[in-house]
């Protein structure tokens, strides 16, 4: 057993933390989140330059060949800075699917452009009534002439509005919730019969609603084997959960530190808040929640390379447990800050929003707790 980071991982950590620290202070973050595109082309370029857009990809495609721990490291730094760059959508989800399912040509073309920072991707998978079920796909892909025709709706697509290319899931066979029968298709942002409506999310990120009214695409826009894409989807979602777990830990760490600092400086009734035992213990409980979240994040990250059952058990443990802890830390950070914690101008309010809303991505606390129970039964 070994909990130490490799030399490469330590370097990665230093690199990404420095970048966030130097380019993403709170004021800048707010400006970026409020900007037209909702992210910074400049920072994205720096991420590319430092090789950070290739973290999870094989070196053949310009990547760093990183695993779960590397994703966690990147996530943690992004959580510390509340980074709103489309890393999750482009690198982890989109890039991950191309890496796992793409033809050599697709990988070369798309991953190269992703790593270079020239191409943004998004994974258009969720639907109006799919909630958190991964296999739930009602959108259809129909074979027509030399290609496919996509019809259906896609919901709450992370950075859908910013992407150059959407990876759209659509059903080629089976019932709406079968694991088999799901295909993935590359769709350009300007495709005919595609309607996209982008909105801000409450945590500062961007999401989009997408309507596909018979979008026609060529055969070379098929990713992987239509109907046999579920396992790749599950695997990139595992990576996504690991990135988010790291992000939660980073943001919780900031929320705890900020709160402890606030308690020490703020006075009430002639005493520093830090002298009130009830507030001390609350801060301690936040600190404990952070420690548990960190343990679960490491667990999931370290299990990414293991067989599916081992990996997914850790993924669901992490997503469920961290969802619970993150919400607790977020809510208490505001509570302990009092009125000032409720305002737009202080970072803690935005940490809280991100910490709570993370639970709405890729399955919430309940969803993953139930899934954990099922996976745990199967393992027994």
């Amino acid at each position: 057993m070994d909990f130490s980071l490799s030399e490469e991982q330590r370097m990665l950590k230093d690199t990404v933390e420095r970048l966030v620290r130097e380019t993403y202070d709170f004021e800048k973050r707010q400006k970026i989140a409020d900007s037209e595109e909702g992210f910074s082309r400049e920072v994205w370029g720096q991420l590319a330059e430092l090789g950070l857009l290739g973290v999870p990809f094989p070196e053949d495609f310009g990547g760093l060949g990183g695993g779960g721990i590397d994703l966690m490291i990147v996530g943690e730094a992004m959580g510390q800075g509340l980074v709103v760059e489309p890393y999750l959508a482009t690198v982890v989800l989109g890039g991950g699917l191309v890496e796992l399912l793409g033809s050599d040509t697709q990988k070369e073309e798309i991953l190269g452009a992703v790593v270079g920072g020239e191409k943004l991707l998004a994974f258009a998978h969720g639907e109006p009534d799919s909630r958190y079920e991964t296999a739930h796909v009602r959108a259809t892909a129909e074979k027509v002439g030399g290609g496919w025709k996509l019809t259906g709706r896609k919901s709450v697509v992370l950075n859908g509005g910013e992407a150059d290319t959407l990876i759209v899931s659509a059903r080629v066979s089976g019932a709406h919730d079968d694991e088999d029968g799901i295909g993935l298709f590359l769709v350009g942002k300007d495709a005919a019969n595609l309607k996209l409506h982008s909105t801000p999310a409450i945590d500062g990120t961007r999401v989009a609603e997408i309507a596909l009214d018979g979008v026609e695409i060529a055969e070379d826009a098929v990713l992987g084997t239509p109907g046999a894409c579920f396992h790749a989807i599950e695997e990139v979602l595992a990576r996504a959960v690991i990135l988010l777990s790291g992000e939660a830990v980073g943001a919780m760490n900031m929320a705890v530190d900020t709160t402890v600092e606030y308690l020490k400086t703020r006075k009430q009734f002639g005493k520093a808040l830090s002298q009130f035992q009830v507030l001390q213990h609350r801060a301690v409980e936040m600190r404990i929640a952070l420690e548990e979240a960190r343990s679960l994040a490491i667990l999931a990250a370290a299990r990414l390379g293991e067989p599916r059952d081992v990996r997914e058990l850790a993924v669901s443990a992490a997503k469920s447990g961290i969802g619970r802890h993150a919400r607790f830390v977020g809510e208490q950070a505001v509570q302990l800050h009092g009125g000032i914690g409720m305002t737009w101008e202080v970072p803690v309010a935005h940490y809280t929003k991100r910490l709570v809303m993370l639970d709405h991505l890729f399955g919430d606390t309940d969803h993953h707790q139930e899934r954990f129970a099922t996976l745990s039964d199967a393992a027994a």
Partner: protein
Amino acid sequence: MDLNFTPEEQAFREEVRAFLQSDLPDDIRAKMKGGKRLVKDDYFRWHQALSKRGWLATNWPKEYGGPGWTPVQKHIFDEECYSAGGPRILPFGVNMVAPVIMKFGSQEQKDYYLPRILNLTDWWCQGYSEPGAGSDLASLRCSAVRDGDHYIVNGQKTWTTLGQYADHIFCLVRTDPDAAKPQQGISFLLIDMKTPGITVRPIILLDGEHEVNEVWFDDVKVPAENIVGEENKGWTYAKYLLTHERTGIANVGASKAAMLHLKAIARDQMKNGRPLIEDPLFRNRLAKVEIDLMALEMTNLRVLAEVQSGGAPGLESSILKIRGTEIRQELTDLARRALGPYALPFQSEALDGGFNGEPVGPDYAAPKAQQYFNMRKLSIYGGSNEIQKNIIAKAGLGL
């Protein structure tokens, strides 16, 4: 013991319902039901309807124009208003400054201000909190220095709810900086916000909304007759205001309306192919909060009955504040969670009354995450829930 309402009380409920049916404007009702943003005119028209009916000042004695209701009637009225989609009655004039004026004000102040509150000529806001003095009011620093027949006010107030709509503010100001104890040397001052030197600056809350404000006073000249009661006795009046008429503090009516709305959402949302309300986990969370709400309502009614028979609520006020806010927060939390991924999109413009764009997700989704974050304030303001527990420990348990 009889938990049923008397025939008179039931008749009263019908009367309230009929009024709401006819006099609550439909567009306001629709905004409330849809969780839309209210603007000043919405509040004004609703308050006007109540005022016309004689039901605006539900806590006022009859002699000043109140309806002379029992606590149980007020409870019924609250419940029916929320259930019908009536906005809350803004308390700053009618339920905050007015009782203080009635109890401690001069005859001139009573004659001048009370009718103007009742007929909506004046719109009040509250100047209590200051930066650095949240729940600890005694440490306030905003000063009023006597200069002939005026006070010169300097300083800053904050968390002034809907101060952007108000034309009057009641303030706690420090009139004796050398008082032996911080609670001493404070006065209660009525200030016209059109007086030169007053600046109102918006505070944007974490949900992006402009609900509260900072109010700055820069050499503001306030006529000396605008002081309520005696100079340096403001702390007494402030405490009276804070403890006065807190039986509405449990907010049972609002939570019952929110509970119904939440169940409607849970019937509409699907999880694993079944309505969310049939999902065992969510279903049990709903049941738990519904049971807690039933207990809260009973506790509230017991306190009301006590008040009705002449008792004064003691630690019960704090219990009702704590549990009332916890339950309300839990309801907004469940509403957010019920939405699944659709809690994320934040379409601020969809909350405006005139919005006719394309909604994202189900039509009830837009305000839910925002409301959840906004409601975090409940356990902070009005004396944080931690402070309420201090009060119960000390006054209620002798600890």
